[in-house]
Every structure is written in C-alpha cells, then in structure tokens.
C-alpha cells in the first residue's frame, strides 16, 4: 500500500481506549466518507470495517489511536484509515485473517470481514503492536 499518511495534508486523530471512543471514531470516519463523496453503500462498508478494526484494537491491543484522512488517487477520492495499537501483536497473521477463526469470544469475522469490506488492506504486527491501514475508494 502507498504511504497515504505521508502525503496527507491533514490527518484527523482520535484515541480509542473505550467502547465509546469506537463510536466517536466511527462518526469521524463517516464524515470523511460523506465528504469524499462515497456512495451510501461504500460509506456503510467503510464505517463497518472501521468498527470491526476499532473493536479489535481495543479488545486485543488494549486500545490505541486511529488516524484518518481524505485521499485521492489519479483524481479518484477515497478515505484512508489507520489503526495503531501497542498490544502484544498477532502471533499468526494468516490464521487471524481466516474467516471464523477467533482467539476470543467473537465470531472471527473482525479482520477477515473488514478486509472484504474495503479496497486496500494492509497489516503489520509485531511484539510492539499492530497497525492496520485501509482505504475505501469512491467508485
């Protein structure tokens, strides 16, 4: 994935340390999606993906911060969102991205489902934390 964070003029940042913060983060992402001209279905998919990833970082990563921005690629508008936590990391990324696999009491759709809902998906995980970056383009 391109380094969208580096080329954004303004990134909005929200901390996520409670389930109420996940709600605020979702609202921030929705506003960016509306401004970016994403269709209602695309907005809904992006905000749902953000909700899954925000909950993941809260439950498994102990919370963290979310950065989001409007981006463009060859004139096409989109929304970039980055989820960064300082949790213990994901031991087996391939397994964590498998449908139905869960280490907790979820349904195992968080990561795999979120990946399906967006156009670009990038994940880095290590012992010092996990970072997920997504982009949804207006079509």
């Amino acid at each position, binding site marked *: 994935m391109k380094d969208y964070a580096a080329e954004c003029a303004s990134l909005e940042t929200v901390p996520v340390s*409670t*389930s*109420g913060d*996940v*709600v605020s983060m*979702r*609202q921030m992402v*929705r506003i960016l999606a509306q401004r970016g001209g994403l269709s*209602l*279905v695309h*907005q*809904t*998919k992006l*905000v*749902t993906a953000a*909700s*899954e990833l925000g*909950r993941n970082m809260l439950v498994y990563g102990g919370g963290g911060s979310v950065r989001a921005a409007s981006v463009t690629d060859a004139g096409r508008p989109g929304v970039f969102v980055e989820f960064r936590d300082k949790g213990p990391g994901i031991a087996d990324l391939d397994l964590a991205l498998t*449908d139905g696999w869960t280490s907790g009491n*979820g*349904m195992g*759709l*968080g990561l*795999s*489902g979120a990946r*399906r*809902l967006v156009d670009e998906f990038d994940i880095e995980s290590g012992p010092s934390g996990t970072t997920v970056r997504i982009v949804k383009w207006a079509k």
Partner: protein
Amino acid sequence: MTDRVPVLKIGEVLLVSIQTDLDDQMVLDLQEDLSNRIVATGAKGVVIDISALEIVDSFVGRMLAHNAAVSRILGAETIVVGMRPAVAMTLVELGLSMSGVRTALNLERGLKLLRRIAAGRA
C-alpha cells in the same frame, strides 16, 4: 456510559427501537434487559427496530442473533425490522448470514408477522 435502550411493552409484545449509535456496553445491557423483561412480562413477541442504525457490525449482528435464540427459549419470537439496504449488503459481505433471525421490512409488517406466528401456535 449509563445510557440504556428502552424496552417498551405493548400488549404481549416488547418493542425495542434503537435510536442511537450503540457502543458495545449498550449492546450487552440491551441483551440482558430484554431477556429479563421477557420473563417479567411473559411477552410472546419482540420487535427490534433498527431503522435508525447506520451500521450493524459483527458485534451487533451477533447480539441480534443471540437475542433471537434466547427469546425463543423464553417463549417469545423476535422480529428484526427496518434494516437499511446498505446495512443488509454490508452484513452479507462481512460474512454474517443472520440465520435464525426473522426480519420484516418495517414495524407494521413485523407486528403482522408476530400475530401470524401467534395464531399458528394457538
């Protein structure tokens, strides 16, 4: 966060109209409140109106499925009404089939469906 979703009783039906963006604690509270109210009131049906919800993620989807299963064991049928088309499309792509959850387009049709189910049981 002490906000709770109200559970209203109309005859033998409990009506839950979700009007705000729910955080996970509100979802868990609703699950508990609803099963308690079914037992306390002896309700035969539950209608959950989600027309104001802009998204249903896997957590809320799981709550809806879980509620339907618990309510059924407690003798009440659950109908989820008012799901937005974009929400339905997203749920399917997310991988949630919502099997076991009865749905209707709107509140009116949901209540009608409950009456039909009740008549079938009698």
